């Protein structure tokens, strides 16, 4: 496993993750519609991901049509990515849980949200064979790499003269 530079991810690394993942466990998902995690969950659902909320306060209740669980261990189906919507101090413990559950739940990626970073935890995860993204938002990254972020006037840093494939249904 090559060492990842966590200050500047190549577009291909992020794209690869976003393409390979189907089910995301979102730790810290809120039931309140105006919270950032709710925004991200709704957006990722629209893009075809299944997002399973992990939030002890909401366990047993539904958020955006998905049942919430108290912990990663309680989720009864496989999920490829853990998205951590918690403060950096809480991230390490969640990462260790993900490492322990890696084989049972088929986890491949640990993703820490914008503003969340724990380099020691990232090293442990990488040593266990997990891919790690820190201090990024999967919603923003998905939008950025699919030109949608540009619609809001943002610099996507994507420069290409290739024509994007649009799938017509």
């Amino acid at each position: 496993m090559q060492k990842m530079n966590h200050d500047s991810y190549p577009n291909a690394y992020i794209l690869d993750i976003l393409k390979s993942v189907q089910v995301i466990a979102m730790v810290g998902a809120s039931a309140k519609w105006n919270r950032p995690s709710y925004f991200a969950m709704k957006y990722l659902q629209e893009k075809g991901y299944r997002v399973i909320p992990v939030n002890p306060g909401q366990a047993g209740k539904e958020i955006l049509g998905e049942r919430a669980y108290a912990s990663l261990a309680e989720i009864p189906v496989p999920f490829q990515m853990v998205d951590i919507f918690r403060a950096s101090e809480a991230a390490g413990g969640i990462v260790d849980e993900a490492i322990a559950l890696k084989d049972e739940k088929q986890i491949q990626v640990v993703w820490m949200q914008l503003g969340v970073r724990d380099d020691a935890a990232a090293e442990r995860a990488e040593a266990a064979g997990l891919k790690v993204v820190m201090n990024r938002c999967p919603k923003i990254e998905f939008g950025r790499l699919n030109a949608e972020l540009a619609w809001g006037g943002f610099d996507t840093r994507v420069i290409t003269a290739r024509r994007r494939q649009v799938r017509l249904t």
Partner: protein
Amino acid sequence: MSKERTYGFETRMIHAGAQPEPLTGARQTPIFQNTSYAFHDADHAASLFNLQTFGFIYSRLTNPTVAVLEERLASLESGRGSTCTASGHAAQLLTFFAFMEPGDHFIASTRLYGGSITQFGKTFRKFDWNVTFVDVDEPEAVRRALTPRTKAIFVESLANPGGVISDMEALAAVGREAGIPLIVDNTLASPWLCRPIEWGADLVLHSTTKFLSGNGTAMGGAVIDSGRFDWTAAGERFRGLSEPEPAYHGLAFHETFGDLAFTTHAHAVGLRDLGATMAPLHAFLTLLGTETLALRMQRHCENAMKVARFLAAHEEVAWVSYAGLPESPYHALAQKYLPRGAGSVFTFGLKGGYAAGVRLVEKVNLFSHLANVGDSRSLILHPASTTHRQLSAEQREAAGAGDDVVRLSIGLETAEDLIDDLQMALERTAVALRQGAS
């Protein structure tokens, strides 16, 4: 894995924001000349109105052609995002609207485009937004002008009407200490000559009407956000961005959007409610301009240097204020902040004073006598009798637009033709003054 490639300025001038249009393959950016956008379904519409997803609703807020220009300007200015507006003045209004409240205060340089001095000093007062104009050559004077209600410092990188450069690094430090953003109008420099965000500016403004569009065709403005300013750190000071927004059911922009907050707010609240939107055609014309920005700025600067040297040696000319000249007091700042050239807008003084100024603008043949800068054509203006005439004599003097001052915006013509035109006009002005005097 290696790092993502960072492309050069000239590559981004042409490619940033603009990929082939995916449905048709159209290579040049299409003009999306339309007002509104179909929703997929009711839930998609709700997501868009809640700002939960990216997409277009109505062109007062966002438009695909305008968005290409916004991304391009954000890229060229090393910013996170940008918001285009109907004019440079609209960008100024939109920017201050994001965080100013009645009773608030900001500090602005005394050396600004005259229209900005009027907008800040007269029109903004109607909102009870209060400005103190300060000689920003003295960062200490800026510090002394700070009040508990001060929300920003505003300067021009290269100041209109000319020859003056703001020490952005020093001013950014003052802003950081005070916990307020440094806003830099980078219109006259353009991002090819200077990128204020790289010197610590938090927000950069443009009148895209000028060098960015470059041909005198399209009004426009832009505010580019660095994404770096912490709108939440100061408690309620910047509450428009840090506190729950009632019009979006209590969403707090900075918390929800992080470094995208200012630009999201500028579209979703600023343009929504102020309505000063850039037209798609103007975005298209400005995009064409940006594709050749580096080439044009290089020639603008070369020509300006030649004309400035000629004027500095002319007997009818009292002084030339061009920071590219070694004798300019701003030469050292020019070498630091604009090493590729000191721009092409500058002023000079006529020994014959006001009377000579109003005559000279009528004697030239190649220079267009009009109130604009940053055109491919060379332009001439006597500010005291035009753009700066609303100001008091002291304000005019402080703004560098005294009675004897003539402003030039040097275009892309053959430099010798410009010099000969000025030579002819200066001679004829001197003759006219002598005849008038006798």
